[in-house]
Each structure stands twice: as C-alpha cells, then as structure tokens.
C-alpha cells in the first residue's frame, strides 16, 4: 500500500555500503535516544559529513525524527525492546539503518500535505520531513525498518535545486 506521499515498503532489504562505522543497539527510552543522537552527530561531524550549520540542522532533525519513530511509535517506549542503528560511510555519501521491534505502520495513514484536511492533523509530519531532507529513504519489512541515505553538502539542498 502506498501513502499519499509515495511511501512504498520494499520487499528486499536494501544493502549497506562503504564502511560500517557504527552498529549498535540501544534501549527504547528518550534518554538513550538523546545519547544516540549526540553520538551520531559526533560521528558524522568527525567524518566531515555535517559541513555547515544548515546541513547539521537538517540532519539532526532527520536523526531525531527517525529515532523518535523507532523508540516511541515503534517500540512504544518499552525498555525491553531494542533499536538497532547502523551507519555506513562511503566518501561524502552516508546512510543510517534504523530497525525497531514494533508493528510497523500503515503508509496510507501518513497525511498528504497536499490535502487541506491533513494540515490540521497534529501528527504524521516526521516521515515527510525525512523524505524531504534525505536523498533516499527505503522502508522495508513492515515499515519498522528504514535505511536513509544522504550525500553531505554545504548549503543543504542547494545541489538538488541546481540539478
């Protein structure tokens, strides 16, 4: 089933690439999520993958959205359930795989921003933000697993606009 914003669950697990620079699990709690975000920002920053403030702002937001989805909506803040995070780096291209133990989600339930009625909904915007700021987003399994990929660039989406 596809959503109004074109999300389709892939049947094959998308491949990792380059060098795996992180592969860890953490418990489903907000403090553990916050620690993981700081770790990811340090890791990406050290590799030169957050070249300026705008790119850092956008990527921090995407990391937060994807991990909140896993911890809160996927694993329902159950500390016995784990979130697995892997990061791949190949030059300026990097990807993050996030897998939770939750039931997944219904892509048709994601609000379509083109639909005026959806504008007044109070949830469902995180997926749209991720889709807009990352270069590639792959959902697979039942939607409880995601691989999102970005090629780091100064000035945020400047490259996309000139292509």
């Amino acid at each position: 089933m596809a959503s109004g914003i074109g999300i389709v669950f892939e049947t094959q697990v998308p491949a990792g690439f380059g060098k795996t620079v992180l592969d860890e699990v953490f418990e489903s709690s907000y403090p553990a999520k916050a620690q993981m975000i700081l770790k990811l920002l340090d890791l990406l920053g050290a590799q030169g993958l957050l070249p300026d403030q705008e790119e850092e702002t956008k990527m921090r937001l995407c990391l937060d959205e994807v991990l909140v989805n896993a911890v809160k909506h996927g694993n329902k803040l159950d500390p016995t359930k784990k979130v697995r995070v892997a990061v791949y780096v190949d030059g300026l291209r990097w990807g993050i795989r996030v897998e939770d133990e939750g039931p997944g989600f219904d892509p048709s339930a994601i609000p379509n921003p083109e639909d005026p009625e959806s504008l007044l909904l109070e949830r469902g915007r995180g997926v749209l933000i991720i889709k807009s700021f990352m270069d590639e987003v792959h959902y697979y399994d039942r939607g409880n697993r995601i691989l999102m990929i970005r090629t780091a660039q100064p000035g945020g989406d400047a490259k996309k606009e000139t292509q």
Partner: protein
Amino acid sequence: MTDPKGKVNTVTVGDIVIATFMESRILDETTILHIMNELGSIAAEPYKLKLLVDFANVEYLSSAVLGKIVALHKKITAEKGQFKLCGIKPAILQVFQITKLDKLLEIHPDQAKALNAFKTKKFF
C-alpha cells in the same frame, strides 16, 4: 538555566501577547512539554486572544512541536483569536514549507512586521 519556567518569555504590547522561545533546541520531549505547558497557560482563555510566537532564538525544532503549534492554532482561531509566528530561521522555515504549514499559519519575518499585521487587521 534548567528552570522550566524560563523557556518562554512573554511580554504584552497593547492587547497582543508576544511569546518568545528562549530555548534554541526544542527537540527533547521534556523541553517540548515545558514549552507547550507555558504556551497552554497563555492560551488558557483563548477567546479573541492575540498571540505572536517568536522563533528568533530557535535553531532546532522537531515535528512533535509542529503538531503542538497546529493544536494551538486551532484552539485560538476557533475562539476568534489571532495567532501569528515570526522570526523563523531559514532551515526551520523549510520544515514549515515542506509540511505546508506555511499555508495554514501566518508567518512573518520579524516581530515588527507581525505586530503591524495585527494592527492592519484591527482597522479594517
């Protein structure tokens, strides 16, 4: 520094309440909760409330905050009030544009322009 009461600074100009976020990162759930409680107490009597929320200090904002802002907008406009935003930095403004909330919400570049918009409406 961690005083939850210090996350939103409010001043009143005429009949307009200006709420300025003092927190640069509105990401973690505790911060979001504190901020929304403070805004909620301002909007406890939403009838004809004129509220301007200034984002000039905000560097990061998660989608959870967007949902809360939409809820606030609904509450105030349902009670014939006016709700405006200002001072949103370019990267965060893109988030409002992606989610089309820039069409729903009235967003101004800065406080002066937003206050002027309240006044313009008043004398129509």
